[in-house]
């Protein structure tokens, strides 16, 4: 299935990308699976996504846990803890 992945703030700078559309292998069905798939690219991807305490995710613009399931066409975002206000 194909999903859209977005990156924000320090994470966007670390991976050098604001986002992309990505075709996922059949075994990737959750946010955690997508994270592992991206980390397996090597280079800056591993370190950028490694620290679970500093990683937040959203699916279709709602905060989501790493265990959240993915469906074709989902918009998945990875970012550090928020610091607005």
């Amino acid at each position, binding site marked *: 299935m194909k999903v859209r992945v*977005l990156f*924000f*703030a*320090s994470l966007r700078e670390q991976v050098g990308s604001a986002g992309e559309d990505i075709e996922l292998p059949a075994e990737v069905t959750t946010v955690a699976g997508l994270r592992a798939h991206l980390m397996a690219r090597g280079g800056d991807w591993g370190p950028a996504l490694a620290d679970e305490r500093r990683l937040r995710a*959203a699916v279709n*613009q*709602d*905060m989501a846990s790493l265990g959240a399931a993915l469906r074709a066409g989902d918009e998945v*975002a990875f*970012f*550090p*803890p*928020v*610091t*607005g*206000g």
Partner: protein
Amino acid sequence: MKIAIQREDFDAGAEARALSRNNPAVGAVASFVGLVRDRNDGTAVSAMTLEHYPGMTEKAIAQIVDEAKGRWKIVDCSVIHRVGELQLAEQIVLVVVASSHRGDAFAACEFIMDFLKSQAPFWKKEATPEGARWVDARVSDAAAAARWSSASTKNRVA
């Protein structure tokens, strides 16, 4: 209800007056304004840049406001958050809540602000003498939001 993410500055007084104008049910308006401060974590800060997640930001704030409306009697409210580059002492965020009585207005304003800080997808990057740095999330901000889960704070101002 107004939710705005914008680069431009805002007029807090005008926004507050807009909530009570033509609405005689409003007996109290509480507001909070967040500003760019000159120090953070012991380091001088000269400016900051705010990034957000367009779409999710508005959705997250709307959900926070809905939650506040379920807890307190709110007549109307406005939330404005700026993005882009901001200089020292510039306004960053405005939360204004209009209610019939001050207890609801005060509490809802603080609640919306606490959850905005821990749930709305904004990120600050500060300019410091050592270069630009992303601001780390504070444990105290998560704690500020968590305390609202205690029922005892729900109607703390009678």
